[in-house]
């Protein structure tokens, strides 16, 4: 394999990996606060992208995206208030099943609002055919947008969870909800806030990846499955690790394609996931003592 081709595979891996990573971040936010995995995360992405596509017809792109993020954030709040909050003393498992149900309802409602057609947002910079050349290989500028937005989201989340009172309160709820409540944290609103945050982040992610992946009402689930795999791979609850794991998985898939038929790509991804679950169940980048604390 010559060098340019090698770089091209790497860039292709980064393209796919960046999408995985940005989806995975959304899973982590809700998990951080509630310990539940929101299987409707993929649908938040599509709702966000679809809303932005509709708004982009009447408003400039940045405004459309901002509007979509706000609308989806509100939807996240509604979802939590109507479906999650009403179920009191529910086990984590029951809440997870509820999110699965929600994803189905949201998918069907989207089918009725936006029909079955494939849509996409315009490229943020350049067009479908513009490329950035790196070391003799080519990559779409949109991928750089995805990476940039992921970086900003991760940085913002890290600062938020580490240094703000609200962020700390959210983390406290995840560790021990009762203890957090005893310390005066309004735990219910923290959960609502986490749904709003992850819906908003999901919408932003959906908008940024839309030019690359295109958007269709039922695309949420496959995106979410990959995002979930990556979140597990990196270690649930750790956004920075999710980005690293996303890029890792993307690169792995790209180089598997270079030597094996591309149908084996998924096999490679799942084998790696199995190995991680067996040998490092808390994730590639998680510290063992941390996860021990969480499950205790």
């Amino acid at each position, binding site marked *: 394999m010559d060098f340019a081709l090698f770089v091209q595979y790497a860039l292709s891996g980064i393209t796919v990996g960046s999408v995985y990573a940005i989806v995975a971040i959304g899973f982590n936010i809700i998990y951080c606060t509630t310990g539940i995995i929101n299987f409707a995360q993929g649908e938040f992405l599509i709702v966000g992208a679809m809303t932005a596509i509709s708004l982009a017809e009447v408003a400039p792109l940045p405004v459309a995206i901002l509007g979509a993020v706000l609308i989806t954030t509100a939807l996240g709040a509604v979802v939590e208030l109507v479906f999650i909050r009403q179920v*009191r003393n529910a086990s984590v498992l029951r809440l997870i099943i509820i999110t699965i149900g929600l994803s189905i*309802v949201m998918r069907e409602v989207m089918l009725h609002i936006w029909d079955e*057609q494939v849509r996409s947002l315009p490229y943020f910079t350049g067009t479908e055919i513009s490329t950035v050349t790196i070391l003799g290989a080519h990559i779409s500028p949109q991928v750089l947008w995805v990476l940039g937005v992921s970086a900003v989201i991760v940085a913002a989340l890290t600062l938020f969870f580490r240094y703000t009172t609200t962020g700390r309160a959210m983390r406290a709820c995840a560790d021990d909800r009762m203890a957090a409540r005893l310390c005066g944290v309004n735990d219910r609103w923290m959960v609502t806030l986490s749904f709003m945050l992850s819906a908003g982040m999901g919408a932003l992610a959906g908008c940024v990846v839309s030019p690359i992946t295109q958007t269709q009402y039922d695309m949420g689930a496959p995106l979410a499955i990959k995002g979930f795999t990556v979140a597990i791979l990196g270690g649930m609850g750790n956004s920075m690790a999710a980005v690293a794991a996303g890029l890792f998985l993307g690169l792995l898939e790209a180089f598997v394609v270079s030597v094996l038929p591309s149908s084996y790509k998924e096999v490679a991804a799942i084998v790696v996931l199995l190995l991680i679950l067996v040998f490092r169940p808390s994730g590639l980048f998680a510290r063992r003592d941390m996860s021990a604390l969480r499950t205790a």
Partner: protein
Amino acid sequence: MRTRLAATLGVLVLVCAVLVSGCKKSPEAPAPKQAAPGAPPIKVGAIFSITGPASFLGAPEAKTVEMFAEKLNQSGGVLGRRIELLVRDSGGSPEKAISLAKQLIDEEKVLAILGPSTSGESLQIKSICQEGQTILLSCAAAEEIVVPLASYVFKTPQKDSQAAQCIFNTMKDLGITKIGVITSNTGFGKGGKAHLEKMAPENGVEILVNEVYEKEATDLTGVLTKVKGAGVQAVVNWSIEPAQGIVAKNMKQIELNVPLFQSHGYGNIKYVQGSGEAANGTIFPCGRLLVADSLPADHPQKALLTQYKKDYESRYGEDASTFGGHAYDAILILTEAIKKAGSTDPKAVRDAIENLQGLVGTAGVFNFSAQDHNGLGLDAFEMLTVKDQKFAIYQK
């Protein structure tokens, strides 16, 4: 109390969803009764995947047959009898198609079934219709629907193998001998892959890279890098959306600057819009519906195509696609055969279809025979290309 509230709300949302879906379907109700009072209507069933993953096929198909039947009934129907359409939604599921077909045949005793939209469904109900002596006019592509022959089963779209042949013919013109083939892991993709593999040697073309990708794939630069590394002269992609748009974009993005051929499944302007500038230059075989306006005035299909396009677009406010055209052909063939047979006896109508010659439809000019239940030749395809994000007739 709170759990109860949640449950009530949940039920409420579900009810709303059902109501919404109900409302959406109501405009598809049977046409107003106009023709010939007294005579019993002719019952015709239709199974389309109006919702679900293949809704891009089924939705325009259902709309088309409803439009056709309504127009026909207003002008007096067939043999002085009204056509009563019983349109059913299979959601693209073969299991559902089976139970719908049984219901239409056993309970409604329909003369014929239009559809289904997908090859998988059509193959599942092929034997049911044959046993029930009910005419099936499938709107799906797979060749296996009419090979081996079942006497009551017909299909209206062009054959996959003819599409592949048209692609190879164009390659011959361009002097292309080394290609990369990428297909999605759907029934449609597998069928295309098999035909391309079988026919390539006969046409002096060598397939250097032959890759299958998942139908949910959102980025194909990895596979295309492999194609690029092999040094091909052209790429053939055989899939349905959204991969069709993604391939075009990714090829331009990694600067794989060789011609891109797509299957006849590319026939919807939405796919072109989905990949913007990147779609320009894509070459694919297709029926002439998409280029109806640029056909020469004396072309036999011109009048019918422009009329259908105009009717459909003014009634539904969306672009006509070749898929709706397949359903148009199905109901056209059926009504012409009923007229010719002068009765609604299934056997007589079936025989009449086999004797239809030179019938102009949207896909091409149909010449049926006892051996050919598709009736279309290679000339039903035109090689099209995309120019400035619009379909145009391909010229070397």
